[in-house]
C-alpha cells in the first residue's frame, strides 16, 4: 500500500510539472502581433501609434502596456515583449545582460520629451533656475520663501525608482549630468506610483512641487519656466522650446529592439518614424524627432 502511494504521488507530481513547464512557452513572436512594454510616460503615445498602425492593417495586432522603463527592458530580457519603450537610455549592465542572453539591444530615438516642473496654480512662483530646482528636490531648501515664494513648507513629489523619469530627473537636474555627483532626492520626498498621481496631488496641494512629461500638463497645475542659471533666460516647457533645444530639461524617448528590427517590428518602427507617425507625437503633446 505504501509503495502504491508513492507511485501515485509521483505520477501526479509529474503531471503537474508537465502542465507548469508547458505553460511557460513563449506566446508572443507570432507573425502578426507585436508586444510593446515599458515607460509609463510613453504608454499613451505607444497606444496611439498602435491604433493608427492597426487601422492601416487590420490583420496585425499591437499590444501596448506600461509599468516603467525598467519593466520594459526586464520584459525584453525575459523574452515577453518585442519592443521595449524607454524614457532613459539603457544602463551598461542592461546591455551586458542582453548580450548574455544572446542579442544586441538596438536603441532608436522615436520622440523627444520636455520634463515639466509643476506647482499648484495658487503658488506665486512662476520660474526657477536649475540650481534652485536641485536645491529643492535634494532637500537643502525646505521652505518656499527661500526661493522667493510664500512661507510654506515644500512638499516634494517624485516618481518611484522604477520610472525612467525619476532616473532622468536625478541625473540631469539633481546631479546636473555630473558622473561624480552624489546628489539624491531628499529622503522625505513622496514617491508616487504614476505621473497622474503626481498631477492629482499637485492640483490639490498648494505647497507641492512635482515633475512629469509635458504631455501631462493641465490647467489644474502650473508649469514653471526654467533657466540654466541665474543669467540665462527663463524658458517655458513648450514644444517649440524643446525642438529648438532652449528648454533645459528635455530627453529622448526610445524604442529598444532585439537586434536590428525585422519583419513586422521593422515595419512598425518605420511607421513610427514616418511623417505620419511623428504627427501623432505632436498630437499626444510630445516633441517629434524630425521637424518637418
Amino acid at each position: 500500500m505504501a509503495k502504491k502511494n508513492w507511485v501515485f504521488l509521483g505520477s501526479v507530481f509529474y503531471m503537474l510539472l508537465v502542465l507548469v513547464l508547458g505553460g511557460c512557452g513563449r506566446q508572443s513572436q507570432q507573425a502578426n502581433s507585436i508586444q510593446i512594454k515599458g515607460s509609463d510616460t510613453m504608454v499613451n503615445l505607444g497606444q496611439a501609434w498602435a491604433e493608427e498602425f492597426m487601422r492601416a492593417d487590420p490583420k496585425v495586432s499591437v499590444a501596448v502596456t506600461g509599468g516603467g522603463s525598467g519593466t520594459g527592458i526586464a520584459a525584453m530580457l525575459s523574452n515577453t515583449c518585442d519592443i521595449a519603450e524607454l524614457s532613459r537610455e539603457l544602463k551598461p549592465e542592461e546591455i551586458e545582460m542582453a548580450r548574455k542572453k544572446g542579442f544586441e539591444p538596438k536603441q532608436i530615438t522615436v520622440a523627444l520629451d520636455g520634463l515639466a516642473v509643476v506647482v499648484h496654480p495658487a503658488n506665486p512662483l512662476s520660474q526657477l533656475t536649475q540650481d534652485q530646482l536641485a536645491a529643492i528636490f535634494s532637500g537643502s531648501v525646505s521652505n518656499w520663501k527661500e526661493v522667493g515664494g510664500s512661507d510654506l513648507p515644500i512638499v516634494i513629489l517624485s516618481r518611484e525608482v522604477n520610472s525612467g523619469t525619476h532616473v532622468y530627473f536625478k541625473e540631469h537636474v539633481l546631479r546636473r549630468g555630473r558622473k561624480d555627483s552624489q546628489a539624491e532626492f531628499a529622503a522625505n520626498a513622496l514617491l508616487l506610483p504614476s505621473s497622474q498621481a503626481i498631477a492629482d496631488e499637485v492640483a490639490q496641494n498648494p505647497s507641492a512641487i512635482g515633475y512629469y512629461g509635458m504631455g501631462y500638463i493641465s490647467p489644474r497645475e502650473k508649469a514653471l519656466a526654467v533657466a540654466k542659471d541665474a543669467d540665462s533666460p527663463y524658458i517655458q516647457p513648450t514644444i517649440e522650446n524643446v525642438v529648438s533645444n532652449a528648454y533645459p530639461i528635455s530627453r529622448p524617448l526610445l524604442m529598444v529592439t532585439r537586434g536590428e528590427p525585422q519583419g513586422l517590428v521593422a515595419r512598425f518602427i518605420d511607421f513610427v518614424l514616418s511623417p505620419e507617425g511623428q504627427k501623432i507625437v505632436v498630437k499626444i503633446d510630445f516633441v517629434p524627432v524630425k521637424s518637418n
Partner: protein
Amino acid sequence: MRVRKLKEWLIEKSILLSGIFSIVFVLLIFLFLLREGLSLFRGESVIDFLIGKSWYPISDPPRFGILPLILGSLLVTLGAAAISVPIGIAAALYIAEIAPLRLREALKAGIELLAAIPSVVIGFIGMITLGPWIKNFFNIPTGLTALTGSVTLAFMAMPTIVSIAEDAITAVPRQYREAAIAMGATKWQTTWRIVARAARPGMLAAVMLGIGRVIGETMAVMMVTGNAAIIPSSFLQPVRTLTATIAAEMGESVQGGPHYAALFAIGIVLFVITFLINGVADLYLHRSRR
C-alpha cells in the same frame, strides 16, 4: 464493489495531495526567497541591512538600509490595529450577542461585502477623499501620511477581525450564558465577563489574522502613505512600507543584481514577520479548541 473502492481511494488520495501541496508550495516559496535574497549578504552585512537608515537602491554605490521601511510598516500596522481592533471586537460582540436576528444577517452580509472591495479601490478612495481631509484637519503639508494608511488599512482588516471573532463568540456554549444569568448577572456582565472571556483565545486569533492582513497589504498603502523612506517620528508623516517597496521597485531592478536580491531579502523579512504573527494566532486558536 471494486469500482467503489477505487473511487474512495482516488478521492482520499487527491485530498491528501492537496494538503501536501499547500505545504510544499509554502516551503518552495520560502526556499526561493532564501535563494534569491541571501545573495545580497555576500556584499552587505545583515546588520547594515536591518538597521541601516538610508534606502537609496539605485544610487552608485547603492545603500540598502531597511530600518525606515520596517518602522514604516510597523507604524502603519500599529495604527490600523489601534483603530480596527476595538471597533472590530465591539462589532463582533454586537452581532453575536445583541443584534436581533434580521439585523444580524444584514450586518454580516455587509461586513463580508466590505471584504470583497478590491484594495486598489479602497486605496483610491483613501487618496482622493481621506488624504485631503487629513491634510486640512491637521493643517499639515501633505495628506499622504502614516495615519491615512492606518485608517485605510483598518477598513481592510475589519472584515477578518469581525467574522472570526464573531465565530469565536458564537461558539461559546449556551450553558455559560444561562449559568451567568441564573446567577443574577446582567446582560452586559454576561457578555463582557463570561462570553468575551470564554471567547478570548478566538478573538486574539482574529486580531492576529487581521494584523497579518494589514502588514501584507500593498496596493492601498502604496497609494496613500506617500512612500518616503524616512524614519517616522509621528503618524502625520509620510512612510514607506516593506510591501510597497517591493511592489514599486521590482519592475526596475536588474534581474540577479544586488537591488533585486535586496528586494527578495525584504521578502524574507516580511515572511518572517507574518510567520511569527500567524504562529501566535495559531497557538491561541489551538488553545481555544481545548
